């Protein structure tokens, strides 16, 4: 009852659309688009990310990784991501049992209503004005609440820095006008990032023209990672 009153007081009536649209009006606002039909599972993105961002090489820490989904003829699903896909994939299921198989590159969704930003007790994880979710490593207390809150498993505890680490969309490169390293190193141009506020940007056009979908939309995280040809089995 009290909650209903509070919500109705805060929201202008008949403006529920506000929930979905939180774009700022000015400046660039970054999003990511991945074309699953173009991904060949080479793992370049995951490998490049580790090198570019000094991500520990052990197979437990990833800012970016690739999953291989195999849907078998009997309806069962097999998902693998050995070492995050960095070393590529070997299909172990015999061809005659496979209905379809595809790769799904994963990374931070840079949500506009990030659960991780919401739960950080000190505000060490925050959304930049460009819509990039970042962690201030000099401020993070290492409580790992954000790791629990991220529905996509995109955060990890850095083993030596003892703070939480995640994809920054290569913020250091973005600021210089460069693309994130994973985008530049994708041999099939399966991933793009760009300004969602610019209607003429490649990503805006991608979202307009393709049937894009975000992961776990029911969680209302305001994900800005759009997939083309995403299978409903992918989580």
């Amino acid at each position: 009852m009290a909650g209903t009153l509070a919500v109705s007081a805060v929201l202008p009536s008949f403006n529920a659309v506000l929930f979905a649209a939180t774009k700022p009006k000015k400046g660039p606002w970054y999003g990511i688009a991945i074309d699953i039909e173009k991904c060949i599972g080479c793992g370049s993105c995951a490998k490049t990310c580790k090198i570019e961002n000094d991500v520990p090489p052990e197979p437990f820490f990833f800012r970016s990784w690739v999953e291989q989904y195999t849907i078998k003829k009997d309806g069962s699903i097999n998902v693998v991501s050995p070492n995050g896909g960095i070393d590529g994939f070997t299909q172990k299921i015999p061809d005659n049992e496979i209905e379809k198989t595809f790769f799904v590159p994963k990374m931070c969704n840079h949500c506009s209503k990030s659960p991780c930003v919401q739960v950080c007790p000190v505000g060490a994880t925050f959304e930049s004005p460009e819509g990039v979710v970042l962690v201030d490593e000099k401020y993070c207390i290492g409580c790992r609440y954000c790791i629990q809150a991220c529905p996509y498993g995109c955060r990890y505890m850095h083993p030596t820095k003892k703070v939480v680490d995640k994809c920054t969309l290569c913020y250091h490169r973005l600021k210089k006008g460069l693309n994130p390293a994973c985008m530049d190193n994708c041999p099939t141009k399966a991933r793009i990032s760009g300004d969602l506020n610019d209607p003429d940007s490649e990503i805006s056009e991608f979202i307009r023209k393709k049937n894009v979908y975000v992961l776990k939309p029911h969680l209302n995280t305001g994900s800005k990672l759009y997939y083309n040809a995403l299978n409903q089995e992918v989580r």
Partner: protein
Amino acid sequence: MNPQYDQLYQALTKVVGYIYPNEIELNWSILIVLYPYITGLVAGAFILASLERVFNVNALKPTYVIALLTSFAFLLVATMPLIFHLGQPFRAWEIMITPHLTSAMAIFGFVYIWYLMVVLVLEIWFDYRRDLVIWSNESKGVKKWLYKILTLGVYDISPEAVKWDEKLGYIVTVIGIPSAFLLHGYVGFIFGSIKANPWWSTVMMPIIFLFSAMVSGIALVMVIYIVINYIRKQKIDMLCLDTIAKYLFYIIIIDFTMESLDQIHRFYEAGESFEIISLLMSGKLFFTLLIMQIFIGMLIPLLALGFLQFYKPNEKLRRMIYLVTGILVLIGIFFMRWNVVIGGQLFSKSFLGFTSFKLSLIGTEGFLMASIWLVVPFLILAALLWLFPPWKKSPSEH
């Protein structure tokens, strides 16, 4: 090899199905199991004390002060597992200095300080003030000075002043009851508000945490009361013990109902996480959930206490049953916290697989360290009972 990596490589071999690669490491371990466990004991013990004070359950008088001191001893330790768990423990104070107000966790510091300073310390002080003045006159050496300092210079023990202590103590207790509810209901909210995790994300979580807190706190005071009297070779007030057990019985029923309702709802609704959670309960959590939490920690105590509501065997047997039941309940609630915290991280948020967890013996997140944080409150309690013996207090009006 780095022992942390060694552990992770071992965990990697035990992954079942598919989990996101960052999920191999279990982020909240035994220390975070202790956090809700200890705060639960604090809140529960305090609520038992309040029953006597505010709701005039006179039979509980012998445990009033013990319950307060127990609550205080555990509260002093409540933050320690949290701080030791942090990657950057020296930055812990940032939660208090620059709290991020949308975070459920950020409010903990304030709730904690409020509860510690405004509720418990004040209530204990008002309750002991007259005794502190008397003891400071009667004692010698360091103790004398300690009592003197603790009186804070208020030496008036006229009947009028004592009446004021009573009145103010009562007001603090009245404020304390919602505060205790807040403290533990809020700890439940920390978990219950995580929409990414279907094992945690339930609106029932704060309520379940609250009632399980009461169950564990009441059981703890019951056990401590029996043990103290055994050590002091004093006769136990059986009316008091029967009354505690009666309340424990009622609250276990409520707690059991709430938890069952939550699970029934989860199963009947059978949302997208249904399969993975069924597998979790019947597999990875079979021992800790079905055997330890539900059977040992809830059903047996429920049957034993229920039986004693209708049939009263001799005092010795009853004492024994209460002691064993109390310990079983404490074990059960510990596993309840375990199942929430550890259980919630054993399955992948992809709902496609499980990781594993092995409690190590040493290290800050090890079994020994966790045991220390469970033993320390008892040592503090022993010191408090030695310094402020409830049995030497002059009789109070309430």
